[in-house]
């Protein structure tokens, strides 16, 4: 297996992009990544695109061909593949690109993620996102996506004594980080009181516990590590990649407060990278809802099960803490264009490892990206490093 390097990154501003179409949003990120890498269209061997539901959001399927076409790649017949696993579509696309280069089959692979969510009404988007759960046995009975995470939150509170303030603190931290991210959807500070008193969505979660509806895209360029210095003096290496499944419905899990797919994907990625959780300096984790960040830091092994709320409360996960989590502002404040999120995480971690993260820069040699589909049916974990894997 070849080692794989990230040599270019690109990301759009995240938010409500009324004036930009799906294809324009994607191209904006893709072109930035190619320019950053200094890669020309002729050099591209293959493309993978993470996208959850263009079919429902903009009534467009076959988006891989659409994107290849408008990127000028169909002239050269470059293969392009759409990858879908709900909100983990981006993480899966990254893994497909990684495997493609690592296998030696392709040399230069562009991996992107994109979602255009604001062309539908908000009730419709609630319905579309609920398709990430089991339509027949969860959504049909009235479960919404926030509702599923609320079921997990109440069980976590019941079982471990996690407090409402600890859960709200996740949103406060992530909003603070986003004040330093010019690409973030929300660049304003909030307080715990604001989180707790916001419009209730699914008790105990409010609107401010929830990631927003977002348009946006992100892209990275991957090449074999041995060729990375042809493109950049500052390559970042993907040293570990893991993907795993759990039951699609949370009612089928022996422990409703654990996402086994996260645990399994993390173990695979740590093992491949020859690292463990203590080696991670910074992480982007999947905080689609505040409680999800608490589950993530537990299931990735950063603390004992049930102690995630305490870890947040103690400030360990803040930007100047021992283990900064979601320096971008996370899904909560940077925004969550579902198919793009997994790639955005890789862009963010790459920027930190290169020392190019601006005001929110943290000191880091090794970073982790954690992307979850639905309520945990799929998870991916990638480990990025300044040092090539030896």
């Amino acid at each position: 297996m070849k080692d794989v390097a990230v040599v270019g990154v690109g990301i759009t501003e995240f938010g409500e992009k009324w004036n930009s179409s799906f294809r324009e949003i994607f191209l904006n990120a893709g072109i930035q990544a190619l320019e950053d890498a200094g890669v020309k269209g002729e050099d591209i061997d293959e493309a993978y695109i993470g996208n959850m539901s263009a079919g429902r959001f903009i009534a467009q399927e076959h988006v891989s061909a659409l994107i290849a076409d408008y990127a000028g790649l169909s002239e050269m017949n470059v293969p392009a593949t759409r990858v879908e696993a709900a909100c983990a579509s981006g993480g899966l696309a990254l893994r497909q690109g990684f495997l493609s280069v690592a296998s030696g089959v392709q040399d230069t692979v562009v991996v992107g993620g994109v979602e255009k969510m604001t062309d539908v009404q908000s009730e419709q988007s609630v319905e579309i996102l609920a398709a990430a759960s089991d339509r027949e046995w969860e959504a049909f009975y009235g479960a919404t996506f926030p509702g599923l995470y609320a079921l997990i939150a109440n069980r976590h509170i019941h079982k471990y004594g996690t407090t409402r303030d600890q859960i709200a603190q996740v949103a406060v931290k992530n909003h603070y980080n986003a004040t330093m991210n010019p690409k973030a959807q929300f660049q304003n500070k909030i307080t715990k009181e604001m989180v707790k008193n916001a419009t209730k969505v699914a008790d105990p979660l409010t609107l401010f516990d929830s990631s927003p509806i977002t348009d946006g895209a992100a892209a990275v360029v991957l090449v074999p590590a041995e060729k990375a210095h042809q493109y950049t003096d500052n390559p970042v290496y993907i040293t570990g990649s893991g993907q795993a499944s759990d039951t699609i419905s949370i009612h089928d899990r022996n422990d409703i407060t654990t996402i086994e797919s996260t645990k399994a994907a993390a173990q695979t990625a740590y093992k491949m990278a020859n690292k463990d959780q203590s080696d991670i300096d910074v992480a982007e984790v999947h905080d689609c809802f505040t409680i999800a960040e608490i589950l993530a830091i537990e299931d990735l092994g950063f603390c004992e099960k049930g102690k995630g709320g305490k870890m947040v409360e103690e400030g360990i996960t803040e930007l100047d803490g021992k283990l900064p989590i979601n320096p971008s502002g996370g899904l909560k404040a940077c925004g969550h264009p579902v198919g793009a999120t997994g790639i955005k995480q890789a862009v963010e971690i790459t920027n930190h490892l290169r020392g190019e993260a601006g005001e929110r820069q943290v000191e880091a040699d090794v970073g982790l990206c954690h992307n979850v589909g639905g309520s945990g049916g799929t998870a991916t974990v990638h480990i990025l490093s300044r040092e090539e894997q030896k």
Partner: protein
Amino acid sequence: MNIPRFWRKINNRYNLMGTKCENCGQTYFPPRNICPNCRREGEIVEHSFEDEIGELITYTIIRSAAEDHEKETPYILGIIELEENTRLTSQIVNCEIEDVEIGMKLKPVFRKLGEQSKDGLLFYGVKFSPIGKEE
């Protein structure tokens, strides 16, 4: 949800008909045709949960719903354990929002499940009620 899609699971939805693996004894609701414990060695038969008493494992109050359930908000959504490790997601009725609590005992009741506003279709199935309040 269109009519054929609803209709083909109507025995499961109306009568809480699940399945059981005769090889390991594990029961399943929603029904499964493959036992995750035994896979191809499993022996799947029908198993009714109609007379089971359930226990509430966790709950939430849905304040903002998708279109088909909008008229019902706010409503209590819960995960109910029917037998050990056999759980389903449904709504809790005959219970005030402030009275719902983890661990409460519940009985299945037949109720309207949702309404497709577009063409006025009504769907029925099983929700859960606190014992003694199922009327």
